[in-house]
């Protein structure tokens, strides 16, 4: 399966059991497994949420919402059952970290789900894994069966009198389902079309019950916070950005891979020291710092600490931790075209700005990159993207708009270089559209 990498600057928290056979329950128990759930049971709901708040853990799926606060929004008393839903529909281009967690440490995710459940007074959790990750779904099904066999799940866990069930669930191919409300629709056996909010899932979620939804990496961090304490975890990162995260280095770097680094780690250092610099002696051109939806940073903007707040200040986002590195052989028009083809393909079509916007942007970029661009297209791309921003039910519209706006703004000259039927300056084969619509 996927190779593991390592670097001396790594601080291994979530990845500390990678490569150690921890998918096996006995091995997991040797490596402090299921101690976090027992600690959480003794802390109780308020104690857990206090630790989580102190940890400054922010959602690792992309939005970076403080996890402890999210959990505290779930009402204590609710007329309907409450649920915990783990989002393993990892599909933001550039992101491949949850795959490693589910492969190497599935029990840590189960533990995270149980701790979240105790914190919000839920008795049922679901772990949703994308359909393409079939081997991970099988690993998870076995992990759950093993945990049930030992009595770690089900009735009266660890003699506490608390009942908690965890089930796996599988997708069948849809980026959109990674959005929290579409995820719930999918789990209920429907098309993954987002729900309008409010009400938020913490109040009205799965089958109408209050629901906590967290990313795989977020939940896999929880057991470590329970055992090491919130303050310890917070101290690993920067203010308001606790802990470490799995950064997925990909693209034109010499040593791509998934590295666990403290939040706030310098991006330039990440590229040039951790990931071995740009391959083939080329120059750094741009970076997509947090998955394809995040605004690109130019080479000279890469001297920045990788946490949610510093990247926001730099005009981008930390997103899902997918760091895609581009060297100076990359055509930014083609890069944006590829991104837009993706979002057009994945738009669920429910709201018009996203459905029509992504389609027009894709068509324009296809024509543009193939040499059929006219001057006013450049302004139109910008205009269309700006008018999608913030005008859709879910963030997919924003996800498509943000890279478009940033690339046109920062690399306008490259668009101009494609005008008047000129072939792509980066690629002799540019006249043919590389991929079908």
């Amino acid at each position, binding site marked *: 399966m996927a190779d593991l990498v390592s670097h001396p600057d790594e601080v291994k928290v979530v990845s500390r059991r990678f490569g150690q056979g921890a998918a096996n329950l006995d091995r997991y128990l040797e490596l402090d497994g299921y101690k976090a759930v027992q600690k959480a049971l003794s802390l109780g709901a308020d104690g857990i949420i206090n630790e989580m708040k102190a940890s400054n853990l922010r959602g690792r799926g992309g939005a970076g919402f403080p996890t402890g606060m999210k959990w505290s929004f779930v009402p204590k008393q609710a007329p309907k059952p409450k649920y915990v839903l783990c989002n393993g529909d990892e*599909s933001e281009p550039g992101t*491949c970290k949850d795959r490693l967690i589910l492969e190497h440490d599935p029990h840590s995710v189960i533990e995270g789900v149980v701790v979240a459940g105790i914190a919000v007074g839920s008795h049922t959790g679901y772990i949703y894994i994308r359909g393409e990750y079939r081997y991970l779904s099988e690993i998870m099904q076995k992990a759950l069966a093993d945990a049930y066999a030992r009595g770690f799940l089900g009735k009266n866990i660890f003699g506490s009198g608390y009942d908690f069930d965890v*089930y796996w669930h599988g997708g069948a191919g*849809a980026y959109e389902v990674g959005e929290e409300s579409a995820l719930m629709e999918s789990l209920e*056996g429907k098309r993954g079309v987002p729900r309008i909010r409010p009400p938020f899932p913490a109040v009205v979620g799965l089958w109408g019950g209050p629901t906590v939804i967290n990313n795989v990496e977020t939940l896999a961090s929880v057991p470590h916070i329970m055992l090491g304490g919130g303050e310890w975890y917070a101290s690993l990162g920067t203010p308001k950005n606790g802990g470490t995260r799995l950064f997925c280095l990909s*693209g034109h770097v010499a040593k791509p891979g998934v590295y666990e680094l403290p939040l706030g780690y310098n991006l330039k250092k990440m590229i040039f020291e951790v990931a071995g610099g740009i391959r083939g002696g080329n120059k750094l051109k741009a970076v997509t710092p947090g998955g394809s939806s995040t605004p690109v940073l130019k080479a000279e903007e890469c001297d920045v600490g990788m946490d949610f707040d510093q990247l926001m200040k730099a005009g981008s986002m930390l997103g899902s931790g997918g760091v895609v590195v581009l060297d100076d052989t990359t055509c930014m028009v083609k890069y944006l075209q590829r991104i837009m083809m*993706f979002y057009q393909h*994945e738009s669920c079509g429910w709201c018009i700005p996203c459905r029509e916007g992504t389609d027009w942007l894709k068509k324009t970029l296809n024509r543009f990159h193939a040499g059929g661009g006219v001057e006013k297209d450049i302004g139109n791309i910008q205009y269309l993207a700006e008018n999608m921003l913030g005008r859709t039910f879910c963030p997919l519209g924003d996800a498509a708009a943000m890279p478009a706006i940033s690339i046109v703004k920062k690399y306008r000259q490259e668009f101009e270089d494609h005008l008047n039927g000129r072939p792509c300056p980066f690629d002799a084969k540019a006249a043919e559209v590389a991929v079908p619509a």
Partner: protein
Amino acid sequence: MRFSDTFERRFTEMLGHYPTRRSVLVPTLLYMQDELGYLSDEAIREIAQRLELNELEVRNVISYYSMLTTKPRGKYNVQVCRNISCMLCGADDVIAGVKKRLGVGHKGTTADGMFSFEEVECIGACSWAPAMQVNYDFHEKLTAEKADKILDGYKMKETQ
């Protein structure tokens, strides 16, 4: 319709995991497809009946998910990722090579029914790009040559 014992065991077990029957729909459709090769009219009728849905509701769900298909395809579905990280690392060459070898385009199937080809979006192999999946198996750090050898392996498995 008859499905494998594993399928039936899983289906019955999953029904107990949710407060509504239709919640099992998405994963069940994929497991059905794995056994049948595609979601036939008969399969759609069957699952609709089992979950007390009408066929249209089931078709409505199928059309949303990109892994689900109502058309037969090859025994081995070769899915090459075309998204950004793979593109930057040479996916275009892999795609061209696989297409040439199989002699089919996007979503095409070879005449002997052995292989189908599909360009897919991000499969979560970005740090090991370029990548493809043949059915559910990941193949990573590809070149056109390496992909060709991998397909040789599948072909060999069938002819032996």
